[in-house]
């Protein structure tokens, strides 16, 4: 646990209370840096990958290979004029992006970052807490949609909430099955239980349900109907501009990173692997999962909102529940 590491260093110089305070501040800064670095790096990968799939170049000029393009875009967003119509509900409108990025920082703080004791704060119920932070997104969508005071944004927020609630149930069922099989909600224990065989070998259907469900929870294409940029012009995000929009994007990319890491931890064996150090294995697997999830966005068209909800209720949830029941029967 990283916080223990810093605490033991700082304790040499200060008293107990001061050193606790100082180590929390240091860890908060580290979590912030990681949270901001995630969209910068993942955003570059997304844009280059998409561009090469579309036979074009992608960012090329800002920094070598366009690496600093997202930094430049973020700075541009900071400088934008804040436009909002006069009737926005101040609290609801402003709190949605703030909470979105706050949850992102929280998720980064409790998830293990690659190997056994490499998380910022150690919690024995890692998985549950990450689920809670992801499951609060419908609330943020409703806050944002209501606060914007725009009739079409509200309609988009209704759709987004409906989609997220549907798929969260499937994801919850997946988490419960995996926790049941491994015997604990702690991610390190789950990885430890996969040291012989990966979970994906035993539960391929659960893996599929998790991939589809989590992509729909974080509203990433091909499930981004509520904010489809070709048709409804950004749905419930329509009034957000400038820094608020940037914070929403930060939340998006961090959630993508978190579900890729979760996919590796829960199904693909975490950091277990023959030759290389565990850290290297973990990040290689995560990189592959991130690339695959990104390629879904650029190759497929999106289904309609009612077809999306159909898939969620009629296919994924029954499959997940059936699997959960089968797991409980076979394992007990």
């Amino acid at each position, binding site marked *: 646990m990283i916080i223990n590491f810093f605490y033991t260093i700082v304790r040499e110089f200060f008293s107990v209370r001061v050193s606790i305070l100082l180590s929390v501040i240091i860890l908060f800064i580290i979590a912030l840096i990681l949270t901001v670095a995630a969209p910068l790096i993942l955003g570059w990968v997304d844009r280059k990958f998409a561009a*090469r799939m579309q036979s074009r170049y992608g960012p090329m000029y800002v920094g070598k290979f366009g690496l600093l393009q997202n930094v430049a875009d973020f700075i541009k967003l900071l400088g934008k004029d804040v436009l909002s119509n006069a009737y926005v509900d101040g609290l609801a409108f402003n709190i949605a992006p703030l909470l979105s990025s706050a949850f992102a920082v929280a998720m980064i703080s409790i998830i293990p970052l690659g190997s056994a004791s490499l998380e910022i704060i150690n919690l024995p119920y890692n998985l549950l807490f990450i689920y809670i932070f992801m499951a609060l997104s419908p609330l943020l969508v409703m806050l944002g949609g209501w606060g914007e005071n725009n009739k079409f944004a509200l309609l988009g927020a209704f759709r987004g909430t409906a989609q997220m609630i549907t798929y969260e149930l499937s994801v919850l069922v997946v988490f419960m099955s995996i926790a049941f099989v491994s015997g604990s909600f702690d991610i390190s224990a789950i990885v430890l239980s996969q040291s012989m065989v990966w979970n994906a070998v035993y539960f391929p259907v659960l893996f599929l349900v998790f991939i589809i469900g989590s992509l729909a929870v974080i509203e990433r294409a091909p499930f981004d109907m509520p904010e489809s940029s070709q048709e409804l012009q950004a749905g419930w995000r329509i009034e957000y501009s400038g820094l608020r929009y940037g914070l929403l994007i930060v939340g998006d990319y961090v959630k993508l990173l978190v579900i890729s890491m979760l996919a590796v931890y829960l199904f693909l064996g975490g950091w277990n692997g023959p030759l290389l150090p565990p850290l290297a294995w973990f990040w290689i697997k995560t990189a592959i999962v991130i690339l695959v999830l990104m390629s*879904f966005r*650029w190759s497929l068209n999106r289904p309609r909102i009612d077809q999306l909800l159909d898939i969620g209720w009629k296919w994924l949830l029954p499959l997940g529940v059936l699997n959960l029941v089968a797991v409980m029967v076979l394992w007990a």
Partner: protein
Amino acid sequence: MGIKETLKGIGYSIGNLKNKPATYLYPDKPLPVQEKSRGMLSLDLEGCIGCELCQKICPADAITMIKIDQNKAHFKANARGEAPAVDFAKCIFCGLCVDICPPNVLHHTHKYDISTNRKDDLFYDPFRLNEVYNEEYKPLNLKSRNEEEKPSEPSTEQGKN
């Protein structure tokens, strides 16, 4: 549910990564244009006969005929003493004047960046068009229409001419 086709679609997209991109980066030298591209007009002033056909056919009314001093222009045979002036603010680069010109003295060059700071600078009188001819068209060494090969066999269709 068609999982195979979905995976094939993703596979083709990822497989496109190995191909070279089909776009160009912003070039530091102008890219070559096709031979028949219709750029800025140029005029070989000595050969102009002042027939006014280019003015009549222009769809955008961009050509006006201007009276010119015969001695300054060194016309070979120009009865009316006038030559065309082109207003590039109106020209649509359609090429009808180039095709109709009987002595074949109007030509398209390959110059396409002709923006200026003032709109009046876009009105090219015949002497300026002659400069464009000397600077832009002659170095291109294109085959002019009179030298194009006529088809060897006559057409089998008898048309009214």
